[in-house]
C-alpha cells in the first residue's frame, strides 16, 4: 500500500508535448511504408516507368516548351501523378489501421487525434517527396528533360507541396471507404482525376462544354499551377480557387468522417 507515493506520482505526471507527435513515430511510420511493396511500386516504380515510356520520345527533347522542353513538361506531369498517388495512399493507410483495431488501441495512449492526423499527413508527404525525387532523378539521368536548375527546384517543390491536397483526399477516403478495397478504389479514382485534370492528355482535346466541367475537377488547377514556373504563362485565379476549394472540401470531409470514427459514444 503506497497511497502517498501514488498521490505524489499523480501530481508529477505530465501529458506529452505536441499531443504525442514525435520523430520516433515518423521514423516507424516511414519504415512501415517501405515494408509495403505495393506502396513502393505505386509511389516510385510506376511514375518512373511512366516517365521512361512517355517522357523520352525521340523528339521531346527538341520541342521547346515554355522555359524548357516537352520532356521536362511530361516529367513534371508524371511527378505530379506519382506524388498524388503516393500522398493519397499515405493518407488512406488510416483505413488499414482502423480495420486492424490500432486506432482504438491508440485511444488508450496520450496521442491526440490532431497529432495522429499530423503524423499521417507528414508521412504521406515523405512518400510524396520520394516519388517526386525518383522521377526527377531519372529525368536528370536520362538527359532528355531540360530546364534551368531553378525550374527543376521550383516545379519539384510545387508538385510536392501541392500533393498535400491529396494527403487530405487520402485521409478522407481512408475514413470513408472499407479497408478491403480502398487501395484499388483510390488507384482508380486518382487515374480518372488525372485524365479529367489533363495530366495525361490536354483537356483541349475535349469539347468546350466538357472542358468547362473538367476545369473544376480536383487535379486540373493543381496541374496548371505546378507547370506555371516552366511555362511562365502567369497564374489564372480559377486554378487557385480550384485547389483551395478542394483542399477545404477534402479536409472538411476527412474531419467529418474522423470525428464520426473517434466519437465517444
Amino acid at each position, binding site marked *: 500500500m503506497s497511497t502517498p507515493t501514488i498521490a505524489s506520482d499523480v501530481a508529477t505526471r*505530465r501529458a506529452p508535448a505536441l499531443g504525442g507527435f514525435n520523430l520516433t513515430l515518423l521514423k516507424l511510420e516511414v519504415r512501415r511504408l517501405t515494408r509495403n511493396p505495393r506502396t513502393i511500386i505505386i509511389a516510385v516504380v510506376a511514375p518512373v516507368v511512366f516517365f521512361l515510356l512517355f517522357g523520352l520520345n525521340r523528339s521531346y527533347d527538341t520541342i521547346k516548351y515554355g522555359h524548357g522542353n516537352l520532356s521536362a513538361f511530361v516529367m513534371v506531369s508524371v511527378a505530379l501523378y506519382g506524388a498524388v498517388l503516393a500522398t493519397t495512399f499515405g493518407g488512406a493507410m488510416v483505413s488499414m489501421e482502423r480495420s486492424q483495431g490500432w486506432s482504438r488501441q491508440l485511444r488508450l495512449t496520450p496521442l491526440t487525434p490532431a497529432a495522429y492526423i499530423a503524423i499521417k499527413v507528414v508521412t504521406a508527404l515523405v512518400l510524396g517527396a520520394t516519388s517526386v525525387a525518383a522521377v526527377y532523378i531519372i529525368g536528370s539521368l536520362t538527359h532528355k528533360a531540360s530546364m534551368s536548375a531553378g525550374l527543376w527546384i521550383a516545379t519539384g517543390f510545387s508538385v510536392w507541396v501541392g500533393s498535400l491536397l491529396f494527403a487530405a483526399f487520402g485521409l478522407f477516403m481512408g475514413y470513408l471507404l472499407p479497408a478491403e478495397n480502398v487501395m484499388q478504389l483510390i488507384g482508380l479514382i486518382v487515374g480518372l482525376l488525372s485524365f479529367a485534370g489533363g495530366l495525361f492528355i490536354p483537356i483541349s482535346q475535349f469539347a468546350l462544354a466538357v472542358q468547362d466541367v473538367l476545369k473544376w475537377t480536383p487535379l486540373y488547377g493543381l496541374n496548371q499551377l505546378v507547370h506555371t514556373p516552366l511555362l511562365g504563362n502567369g497564374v489564372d485565379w480559377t486554378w487557385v480557387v480550384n485547389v483551395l476549394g478542394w483542399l477545404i472540401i477534402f479536409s472538411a470531409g476527412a474531419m467529418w468522417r474522423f470525428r464520426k470514427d473517434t466519437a465517444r459514444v
Partner: protein
Amino acid sequence: MTQTATFGTGRSADGMGPLAVELTGVHKSFGHVHAVDGVDLNLSSGEIVAILGPNGAGKTSTIDIILGLSQPDSGRVQVFGMHPRQAISRGLVSAVMQTGGLLRDLTVFETAEYTASLFARSQNPREVLRTAGIADIADRRVNKCSGGEQQRLRFALALLSNPDLLVLDEPTTGMDVEGRRGFWAAIRKDAENGRTVLFATHYLEEADAYADRIVLLRHGKVVADGTSSQIKAMTAGRIVRATLPGASEEALRTVPGADTVEVRGETVLVHSNDSDATARYLLTQTAAKDLEITARGIEDAFIALTGDDPEPATPTSPWMTR
C-alpha cells in the same frame, strides 16, 4: 435478489490521495438497453478488483466509461481525481482491451518503441518486453506472432507508462490454464508495488482466485461488492423458507443470520449466513411453519445474483427438512 449487498472493502484512501476510480451514479444507454444503470464504484490505490458478471451485464460498458472511450449519459467519472482522458494522457492509466489491435507490419520491439514514444515518461521498451516474457521475439513481425504472444505484447504496451491503474477487459480469454496462471502471477507480482488493477471477467473462479475485491454486476447494476471471501460466504449461504402469514420484510431482516429476505404471499425466504440460528428463531419466536432449509452451490448463487431470473434460484437440493 433485488438488494445490493455491500461490504466494507477493508481499504480506504483516507484522504491520503485521490481515489484511483470514482464512479457516481453513472448511467449509459444504447437505444433501449440500459447497459449501465446507476453504478457507484470507488477504487482505492493498490486494490485488485474484479468486475464479475455474465455477458451483457455491463462490464465492458463500465470499463469504457472509466477509460473515457465512452461518455456516460449521466453521473460523474473521475480517475485519480481527473477526467479519464487527462489521466490517460499522463500515463496514469493503461488498459488491455479485447478490441485493441496491433499493427501487423511492425515488429514486437517497434510496436513497444512506437507506444513508448507517445508518453512524456516511459519505461525502457526492452525491459518491459522482458517483464512480459517476450524479449526473445522482439524482432518478430506482429503478424507472425501467435495469439498468446500478441496478448503478451498488449500487456507489455500497457506497462510501458508504468501506470498507477491497469484495466484489463477479459484478459485471459483464449489462454490455456497454464498461460492464465502465468499471466496472473505476473499481475500479482506487479501489483505489490501499489498499482491498482481492475479486471472484468465472467469466470467466477478467476475473480475468486485473483481479486482482493469483487464487484458483481447484473443488468448494469452493482448487485454485490465485497472481498472474495465475503462474496463467497454470501454465495455459499443457505435459504430458509417457511410459511409465515403477515410477515414484513423489515421485521424479517432482523432475524439472526439474515442477509436478504423476501416475502411472497405467505411464504418467506431468508437468505441466511447462519441457517441454524435463523431456523431456531423462526420456529421459536414466530408462527412460522413448514420450514425448509436449502443449500445452494456457489454456481447457483452466482447465477441467482447475476442471472436473468428476477427470483432467487429455486432450491434444487433440499437436504434438511423439519
